[in-house]
């Protein structure tokens, strides 16, 4: 009986390992505590996490849930943009306007999901999304083919976004910092994804840089990602509070030591 139990345990273990689907290519996304984007859908608060975005994007692409660089980038733009424009208020979904020069699937799906206008969404209200071509005009054709034509020549300038409060017209423009992108990132991307001329070593290098960039986008604070956001001012140390505490601690400690000596 014991031996059978042991065999069953090993068999169960093997089944578990076999059920795992391994994702080749990029490094797994590191853990990040970004917090959710909170919007009101007809007055009802809705929390949107990066995992929801990954699932939606994966579903539309017919793949495993995965938050690619563009998903994470748009997520951080919306988190920071909403915070800049609305402050502590929670925006109504229909009041959110997004303009993006980044026209990739990941950015589009993320913006769709947050504004509630994407396919398969069960949103009660919807905001507005505008994709912008490199010449500054609004795109009218959102088909994959049309967007791929623009995406071929992706460069730093494409990482420009505007989050608008439609009811008041207030907006925040956000652009990604240049030093986020590893050296030669866009050239490698073109060779690997567009021209398909990359060697194996170049592909591996691109994957490594891609993973590095995604980790930064997931983990760095807003002021290290966006040119427009200032780092928080360092607080002056509370010397009085700390001094009072230390004084009390020292006096009490000395008192206890003296009491102990007197007792002896």
């Amino acid at each position: 009986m014991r031996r059978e139990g042991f065999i069953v345990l090993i068999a169960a273990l093997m089944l578990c390992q076999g059920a795992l689907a391994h994702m080749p290519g990029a490094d797994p996304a590191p853990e990040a505590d970004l917090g959710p984007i909170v919007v009101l859908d007809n007055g009802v608060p809705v929390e949107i996490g990066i995992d929801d975005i990954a699932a939606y994007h994966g579903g539309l692409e017919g793949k495993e849930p995965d938050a690619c660089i563009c998903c994470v980038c748009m997520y951080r733009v919306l988190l920071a943009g909403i915070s800049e424009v609305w402050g502590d208020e929670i925006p109504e979904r229909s009041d959110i306007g997004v303009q993006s020069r980044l026209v990739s699937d990941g950015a589009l799906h993320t913006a769709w999901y947050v504004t509630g206008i994407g396919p398969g969404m069960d949103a009660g209200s919807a905001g507005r999304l505008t994709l912008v071509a490199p010449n500054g005009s609004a795109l009218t054709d959102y088909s994959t083919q049309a967007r791929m034509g623009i995406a071929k020549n992706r460069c730093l300038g494409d990482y420009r976004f505007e989050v608008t409060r439609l009811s008041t017209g207030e907006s925040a423009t956000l652009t990604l910092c240049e030093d986020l992108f590893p050296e030669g990132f866009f050239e490698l991307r073109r060779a690997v994804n567009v021209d398909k001329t990359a060697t194996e070593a170049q592909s591996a290098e691109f994957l490594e840089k891609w993973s590095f960039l995604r980790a930064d986008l997931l983990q760095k604070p807003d002021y290290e990602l966006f040119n427009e956001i200032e780092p928080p001012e360092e607080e002056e140390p509370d010397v009085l509070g700390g001094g009072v505490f230390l004084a009390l601690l020292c006096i009490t400690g000395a008192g206890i030591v003296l009491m102990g000596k007197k007792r002896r």
Partner: protein
Amino acid sequence: MALPVQERWDLVDIIARKTVAAGAYRQNLGDVLGDLTVRPLTGIPVAFAVLYAFWSIFSSFAGALVTDGFMVKVFDSHWLPWLQGAWSDPASIHYFLFVGDPLAENCFEAFGMLTSGLFVAIGVVLPAIIIFYLMMTVLEDSGYLPRLAVLMDTVFHRIGLHGYAIVPVILGLGCNTPAVTATRVLETRKQRFIMMTLLAIFIPCGAQLGVMLEVIPDAVGWVMLFLLIGFGIFGFILDRIIPGSNPEILIDVPPYHWPLWENVTKKLMNRTKSFLKDAVPFVLFGVLVVNVLYLAGIIGALADLFEPLFVTWFGVPKETVGPLVAAFLRKDLAVAQLSAIAMTPYQMITAVVLVSIYFPCVATFVVMLREGWKELAAAVAVLVATVFIYGGLIHAVGILMGVA
């Protein structure tokens, strides 16, 4: 001249009357506290509090103050850039062996003998070991350790040991080498074998704890939990399959007293000195050997060979094979190496647990060999089975929880 029995006893009485003074016993607060700390109802919470203090002081001193506060800055901002600048020819073999990666920005990732090797030995392990041995000596000299042994007796009997097994366990949290020797406090061969095997597999040493605290601070609790569960499960199994007895013991519990600082200092100095004598050469030599193995392509070949086992069965990247080879030389070194490999948090926890339960470091191996080659061979056999089953089990738990 021999005295008759009666006269001898009379003489004893006369001497005793002249030399022994008897007074009325008056229970003092120390006696009461001594009693309360061995009674399970009050003693177990106190043991939890002592362990809390132990770990909190360990991580504040070794982690926040010495390593993060000073050593990281000394090594990463001063030592590493100076060495990278001063050492000629970054493309050469000697640069790779001694300085490591020329593009590395910190000593953990450089992996040269004089960068990672020195940083791990002096910057991370030394403060961890000093504070660990200091606290351990204080507990020992104040009289708390025997009380902990009494408290743990029932628990340890479930895995075929007795309360004094707490001594090698706590020593093992500092360094497994003296802990293996300390298994001699146990009575039977069965007990000594169980303790030695469990020590080699499930007790991470202070050096490893220090590095874990540095590279995966958020996951240390999970790693320790997995190791603790494994300690219980495999101890229970070993107790049932290994023949032999598990006798009761009598423990002499001294009253509580303030430790004598001369004794504490002396013990601390001796323990730290002997640890440094063993550890520093092993860490430096370990980095050198691992780098040579990398250069010779042996680690790459091993990684390819074991890839199916590691990726499918344990759920960790194949790059973890290198650190596992290094783990035989020094486990702290292996954890440091793991930190440079891109992994999900759960993969990192699994990999660190694997490093912990994998072969004991070479120093422990030698001491185990001294205890008997048969015991060592049997311990290694148990260890291989444990790594395979427990590593797979952790991966399976991760899959079922949806995190692996």
